[in-house]
């Protein structure tokens, strides 16, 4: 029997096929006919389109604010990844020190810092409340708290390449010092030191000091050292660090954007 001659049967089969309840051998026979006859194909398409309307007819449910935060973070991360990929393709073998001057990577660092801000808030919650999860509302509240804390005009969260927060950096302008708090589990070897670098918008990285082994560290720094610096990074260096003019010689372990508190 040629079902193209039986419009009612064709319509019934197409409706069942598109609904999904036509199964097994009957489904395969219908698919074969659809490949052979445009009329069958068209009937299936009509019903697929009709049934797809079911997706528009369900009761609405408002998502929690955290869902958009997660989407936004993942979109930013994918944009960062693309920027880094473009940077790698643009210069496959950078000259010594060239990596640091690559503008795209710099922008990438700033974007990574935006992600790290969230990680920082997460850390804050764990420190303050012992909670393991954060909601959008909590994040907002903590950001406000962070911004309301007096005497902190700059804050940075330095994260590793897994976006795990490893170092919380705040600048205290009253005492002219950078306060660093280790929040990750990283420990340098006995013959190694961590060194903090400012990554200014122009020129090479500038050393802000070498870190001791303590969990809470303080480095002397003036406001001029951090003003208009978009990002900070920490490299692993030989014990005692390297001169600022040399630039980092070891791997960059942690980096993040320096965020100025809105006054």
């Amino acid at each position, binding site marked *: 029997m040629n079902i193209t001659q039986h419009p009612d049967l064709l319509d*019934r089969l197409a409706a069942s096929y598109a*609904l999904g309840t036509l*199964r097994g051998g009957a489904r395969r026979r219908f698919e074969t006919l659809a490949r052979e006859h445009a009329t069958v194909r068209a009937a299936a398409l009509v019903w697929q389109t009709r049934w*797809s*309307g*079911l997706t*528009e007819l369900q*009761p609405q449910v408002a998502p929690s604010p955290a869902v*958009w935060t997660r989407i936004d973070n993942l979109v930013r991360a994918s944009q960062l990844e693309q920027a880094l990929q473009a940077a790698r393709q643009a210069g496959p073998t950078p000259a010594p020190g060239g990596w640091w001057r690559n503008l795209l990577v710099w922008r990438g660092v700033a974007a990574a810092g935006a992600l790290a801000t969230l990680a920082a808030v997460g850390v804050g919650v764990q420190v303050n409340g012992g909670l393991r999860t954060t909601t959008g509302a909590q994040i907002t509240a903590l950001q406000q708290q962070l911004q309301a804390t007096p005497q902190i005009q700059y804050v940075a969260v330095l994260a590793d390449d897994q976006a795990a927060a490893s170092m919380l950096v705040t600048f205290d302008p009253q005492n002219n010092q950078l306060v660093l708090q280790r929040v990750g589990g990283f420990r340098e070897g006995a013959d190694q030191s961590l060194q903090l670098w400012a990554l200014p918008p122009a020129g090479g990285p500038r050393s802000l000091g070498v870190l001791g082994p303590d969990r809470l560290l303080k480095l002397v720094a003036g406001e001029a050292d951090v003003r208009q610096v978009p990002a900070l990074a920490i490299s692993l260096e030989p014990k005692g660090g390297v001169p600022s003019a040399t630039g980092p010689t070891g791997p960059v372990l942690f980096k993040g954007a320096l965020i100025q508190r809105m006054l």
Partner: protein
Amino acid sequence: MSTRHPDSELMDLLDRIAARDDAALKSLYERTASPLLGLALRIVRSRDAAEDVLQEAFLTIWRSAGSYRASLSPPMAWMGLIVRSRALDALRKRSSDRADRMNELDDEMAQTLEGDSPNPMDAADASEQAFALHHCLGKLESKQREVVSLAYLRDQSHGELAEQLRLPLGTVKTWIRRGLEQLRACMARYA
């Protein structure tokens, strides 16, 4: 309220998303997240899983908005199909490790048939084609409407529906067959 057709506003947003405009993604999310989460929840039945589906779906929309125009679909239908596809993936993944939660899942499913109102569907923002379907579904008995909807949304066979809804297989087959016949007659008038 704009006088423009909502579809053309959503299509403009999708065009901007295709051009990597992340502000447009936020606007699209604000406009469509609630209906799309409702859809995901109907398929996966758990709020956490539904929110994960919504997240996945928006990342898919971000990546593939450039192919929207070629689909020739109303924008909500296109996004609805993305959500349904992600939700079905999540269901399949869950069914592979749900043996211990089977009973709990059954209870949830059973409730969906008991507590349905005459026509619980929300057609406020629906496209024209969905509105026709809404009208025709509204003429079915609620249990027929329910099994037909679940067959499509959850991509379930007669047997799977019977098992999950704890109904005799013959009953499910009859409801779907009668529901389909009425719907076909009604939808033919909108062709």
